[in-house]
């Protein structure tokens, strides 16, 4: 009898610690009241939030309830890559004051980020940037946070404010850390970034990269696994770092939100257990920590916290910013959900971030196939997006493409297909990377000499990324299409009198005549940089907003 009771208690204990506990904790977030949000202080930009229409897919919305599309790029020069142990470019904001810009350095794969860069982004119609940060710079010594690094971030946020651009602060990592060990000749630490040295626990495993994939390294996998299992409380330190960042920008609407962890690598764990039992519960605890939501059960910290565990309020009480959650790295490789897709938190402003690298990092790329004849994904580019819509809906989260990019030679195939999918699924994007030294994927050509920060704007990028698009619309069923070959644009929607205006951005490259039908009253605003804004107020019923095809006025080379 005692044996029977003991076994049943064991089963119940294991159930609590595994999927049954994880699923119940997720479902409980649907009945727990969302943490109360107070209206934030007004600023240069409207606070963004995630709207949850009844029966519809959640979406990123502004203060008038309009669907907002964010377009932007990802400058990577605030990251600390190896093999050095110090940032290549100065963190002192004085080095960037009055539009000064430090000299480009061949020691970095990315040129410095300066105020002129944000101007150039705005000229392409970007209304946001995703700003990756390194934990190794935020908390170089355990428990000691780097305020000057955040001053530098705040400087960029101020530049964005002047241009009315949002900033997504991204807690970035690549292959966990550049402190995983120089290892042998297969390891190139200039591709690795993330955790500080004290939080990189490799247990002495060798640093050796297999098949030129920086993540396929025993030291990387071990260190990553130790993070997910909270070895030595390093996950707690990460949450404290996140709180340090969030506290600084708590009242700033220019910061759209925080990306908690870039491209989470499972380490030695396997999907879907990794995502459902380690990653998404970690996200829940991160949200608990900075918003004060009380999802999950009160638990210990400092060692492995099971999926049912919540996290203590770290006193930031940030209940306005968006929280971007990257799906696991294997989702990026498969374009297929590798998690159960359950709600994460009672906090309403959650965004599911996908990284769209179809035919670049997907499994078909392991085979020598032409992109046009790839055997995978079976659903083509749309597979990732259609499934992501379903995942986002199940998680009660908005959907966003937090990262995509490709070699310039693939612009006519991959890039053009990706931006069309983003139009179709009404998602915004962030393009990786903004600029890159050497033969990379940047929006600009690499610099001809090291003294320049870049070469000229790549015309194919300008053609495809400087797009006509609705920045905000009250019609959630609207559809639109921009033809990057001739600059033609058509948007069809439906509105009621009194609905907030639809705002359509027209970049300087597009010079065609704007027309609308009787469904809207439009005001055309000519901006100083040559772009135009169409402010279309519905007068009732269906409406059409169009830009006539005209050869593009490209400035790039």
């Amino acid at each position, binding site marked *: 009898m005692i044996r*029977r009771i003991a*076994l049943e208690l064991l*089963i119940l204990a294991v*159930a609590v610690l595994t999927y*049954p506990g994880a*699923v119940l904790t997720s479902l409980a977030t649907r009945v727990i009241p969302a943490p109360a949000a107070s209206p934030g202080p007004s600023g240069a930009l409207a606070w963004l939030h995630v709207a949850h229409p009844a029966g519809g897919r959640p979406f990123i919305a502004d203060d008038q309830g309009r669907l907002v599309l964010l377009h932007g790029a990802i400058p990577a020069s605030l990251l600390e890559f190896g093999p050095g142990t110090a940032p290549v470019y100065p963190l002192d904001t004085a080095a960037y004051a009055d539009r000064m810009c430090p000299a480009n350095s061949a020691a970095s794969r990315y040129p410095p980020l300066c105020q002129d860069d944000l101007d150039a982004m705005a000229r392409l119609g970007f209304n946001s940037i995703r700003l990756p940060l390194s934990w190794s710079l935020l908390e170089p010594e355990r428990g000691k946070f780097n305020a000057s690094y955040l001053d530098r971030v705040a400087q960029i946020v101020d530049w964005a404010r002047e241009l009315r651009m949002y900033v997504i602060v991204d807690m970035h990592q690549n292959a966990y850390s550049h402190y995983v060990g120089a290892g042998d000749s297969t390891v190139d630490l200039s591709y690795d970034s993330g955790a500080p040295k004290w939080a990189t626990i490799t247990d002495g495993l060798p640093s050796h990269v297999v098949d030129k994939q920086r993540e396929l390294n025993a030291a990387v996998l071990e260190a990553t696994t130790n993070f997910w299992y909270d070895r030595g409380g390093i996950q707690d330190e990460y949450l404290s770092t996140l709180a340090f960042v969030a506290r600084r920008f708590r009242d700033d609407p220019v910061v759209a939100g925080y990306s908690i962890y870039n491209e989470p690598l499972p380490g030695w764990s396997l999907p879907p*257990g990794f995502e459902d039992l380690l990653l998404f519960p970690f996200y829940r605890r991160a949200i608990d920590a900075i918003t004060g939501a009380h999802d999950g059960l009160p638990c210990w910290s400092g060692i492995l916290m099971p999926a049912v565990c919540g996290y203590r309020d770290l006193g930031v009480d940030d209940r306005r910013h968006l929280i971007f959650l990257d799906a696991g790295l294997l989702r990026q490789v498969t374009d297929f959900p590798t998690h*159960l897709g359950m709600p994460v938190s009672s906090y309403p402003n959650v965004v599911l971030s996908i990284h769209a690298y179809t035919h670049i990092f997907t499994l078909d790329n392991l085979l020598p196939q032409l992109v046009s004849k790839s055997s995978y994904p079976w659903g083509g580019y749309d597979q990732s997006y259609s499934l992501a819509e379903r995942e986002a809906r*199940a998680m009660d989260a908005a959907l966003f493409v937090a990262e995509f990019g490709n070699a310039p030679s693939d612009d006519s195939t991959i890039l053009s297909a990706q931006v069309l999918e983003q139009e179709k699924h009404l998602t915004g994007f962030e393009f990786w990377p903004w600029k890159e030294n050497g033969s990379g994927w940047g929006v600009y050509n690499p610099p001809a000499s090291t003294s320049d920060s870049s070469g000229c704007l790549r015309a194919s990028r300008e053609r495809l990324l400087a797009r006509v698009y609705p920045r905000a619309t009250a019609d959630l069923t609207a559809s639109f299409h921009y033809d990057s070959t001739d600059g033609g644009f058509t948007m069809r929607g439906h509105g009621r009198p009194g609905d907030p205006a639809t705002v359509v951005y027209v970049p300087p490259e597009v010079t065609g005549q704007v027309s609308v039908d009787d469904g809207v009253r439009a005001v055309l605003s000519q901006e100083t940089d040559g772009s135009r804004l169409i402010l279309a107020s519905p007068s009732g019923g269906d409406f059409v907003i169009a830009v006539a095809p005209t050869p593009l006025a490209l400035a790039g080379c």
Partner: protein
Amino acid sequence: MRDRAATRALVLGLLALWFGIFAPFAIWSGFRSWRRIRASDGELKGAASAVAGLLAGLIGLATMVIGAVYWLTA
């Protein structure tokens, strides 16, 4: 003598809590073992393991069904 299927049911049941796909097998194994042990008039042992495996299988199956229904109806 111990019914070997009882141990199998327990192992499958524990696996079902991580991987729902094992749940039907745990239920099948646990139920059959439990019936056999009851019918053996004390000759076969392992009822506790069989019932625990059955219980774990049922919990695993319920979790899988709830997850699938939630995903399909969301």
